[in-house]
């Protein structure tokens, strides 16, 4: 029997009064995947995450976690969540805070008593277990938030900007935790602005813009093919540049220097031949694999519109 995907949504839509926040969220995240969710500020990422957790009711559309409708509270026993703007009951001590959330997961006390020290150790807060959260730094709060998201050994962990308040050591820790979760078969849904982390940790990514998923692809497919090309040449003219768009995109001109991206490395010699045939003096032509940041800008756009 085939297991249901960890996340499956179909045309999820959310309007706040007349304002459209998410127009069409249709995606499937398989079990065990580390899935990156990318988009500019205000694109509807957090609203999408909140719909997955039933914190926000969709205006229309359907969604399931592990084959169970989003509105069914029981399914959230298999989900761990770290919100973007993590605010906790800061008058609680770290161990009390975790015990509260373990109780909400309905974990037996003997199990939670064993699990809490493990998690405090995992996030590097063992020596702060009796400290009140009000005395924690932003990074420490994020770590304890991460620990509460992992209490119940969830099948799906949803992390909304999990490293935004962390220093490099903390970021490395989160990356290692995500890798361990993935190796243990846990599905991770990662919403992050740190594209370098997405690049390192994710199997697949979805790009969201104006509340709509505009592309879903494996990171290998996205990054493997695309290359950034730097060209230094003389005698270029608008017609030649226009003609180049047959093999490349996102052409930028700076005097004799041109940069563009190609979807496939084999396009580079074709471009070179074309330029020589057009009597363009080519001084240099170098290529390198495109970064996720460049790809993000290409796919989502640079206009700053959401």
């Amino acid at each position, binding site marked *: 029997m085939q297991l249901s995907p960890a996340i499956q949504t179909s045309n999820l839509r959310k309007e706040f009064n007349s304002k459209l926040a998410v127009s069409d969220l249709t995606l499937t995240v398989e079990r065990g995947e580390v899935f990156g969710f990318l988009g500019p500020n205000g694109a509807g990422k957090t609203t999408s995450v909140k719909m997955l957790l039933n*914190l926000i009711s969709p205006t229309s559309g359907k969604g399931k976690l592990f084959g169970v409708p989003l509105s069914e509270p029981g399914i959230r026993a298999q989900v761990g969540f770290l919100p973007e703007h993590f*605010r906790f*009951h800061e008058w*609680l001590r770290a161990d009390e805070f975790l015990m509260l959330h373990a*109780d909400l997961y309905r974990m037996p006390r003997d199990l939670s008593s064993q699990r809490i020290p493990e998690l405090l150790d995992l996030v590097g807060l063992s020596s702060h277990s009796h400290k009140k959260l009000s005395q924690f730094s932003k990074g420490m709060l994020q770590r304890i938030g991460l620990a509460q998201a992992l209490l119940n050994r969830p099948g799906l962990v949803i992390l909304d900007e999990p490293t935004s308040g962390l220093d490099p050591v903390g970021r490395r820790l989160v990356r290692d935790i995500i890798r361990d979760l993935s190796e243990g078969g846990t599905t991770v849904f990662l919403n992050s602005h740190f594209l370098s982390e997405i690049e390192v940790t994710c199997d697949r990514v979805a790009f969201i813009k104006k509340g709509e998923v505009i592309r879903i692809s494996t990171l290998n497919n996205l990054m493997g093919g695309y290359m950034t090309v730097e060209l230094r040449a003389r005698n270029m003219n608008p017609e030649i540049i226009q003609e180049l768009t047959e093999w490349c995109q996102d052409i930028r001109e700076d005097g004799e220097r041109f940069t563009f991206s190609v979807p496939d490395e084999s396009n580079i010699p074709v471009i070179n031949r074309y330029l020589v045939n057009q009597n363009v003096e080519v001084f240099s032509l170098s290529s390198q694999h495109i970064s996720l940041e460049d790809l993000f800008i290409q796919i989502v756009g640079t206009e700053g519109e959401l």
Partner: protein
Amino acid sequence: MSTFTIARLTFYEASRRKILLAALLLGVLFLIIYGLGFHYLMLDVEDSIGIRDRVQLNEIRNFLLMAGMFVVNFLTSVMAVLTSVDTVSGEINSGTIQTLAAKPIRRWELISGKWLGFAVMLTLYLLLMAGGVMAIVYLRTGYSAPHPFRGLGLLWLNVLLLLSVSIFGGTFLSTLANGVLVFGLYGIAFIGGWIEQIGSYMGKVSAGQVAIKIGIITSLIMPSEAIWRRTVFELQSPLVKALGFSPFSALYYPSTYMVLYAVLFLLAAFAMAVWLFSQRDL
């Protein structure tokens, strides 16, 4: 059950944030001042009218008991609103509710847990304050109000009523707006109650009848003052009841139907709070 986890959290929060300690200390201070005042007033009274005139003494004891209960009713009402006014709207605003609601918990469990936590705290506070006033009067003079348990029950109903309205408001209003709503309703009920009381002294004069109707309408909008006047009816001495003349009494007392209405009002406010919170985006 998650309701009890949230109730424990709510109660614990009141304790950690020193709300319980402040209430306890000020409550004890109130009882000490009341006790001293009562003792010395009674010494003076006993001196001037003698201890044999039990009827007159009991009237004075009852009057002083009612004065204490009037303050207790006011303090517990204020306590019910001030402690709970921020509990839902504040958690929504700060975002702390998100990690709670993202757990395998139903929305009604969150609301009922908060309600239960505050209800336990306010019940203890009421028992301390009202029980303390009654105990002081009894221990000093041996006097007990006619129906102390009914009176306590009605004061409890009043506190739970205000708590339910406050939690209801918090599900759709900001903390400030909710505070304005609940205290506004309390104020309307209070002034309506006094208008009705004054109207009742005017007898069958048409202005008096209008005043009574205003009081009844305000009691329907918010039955807190009506419940207080019914409490007075249960605790007042039979003589004052018969005369109908005291700052705490009126010729017309709210009927049992009004008490029933207050219970239904409480249940409706709670049910609406659960429904609105279940519908709202967090």
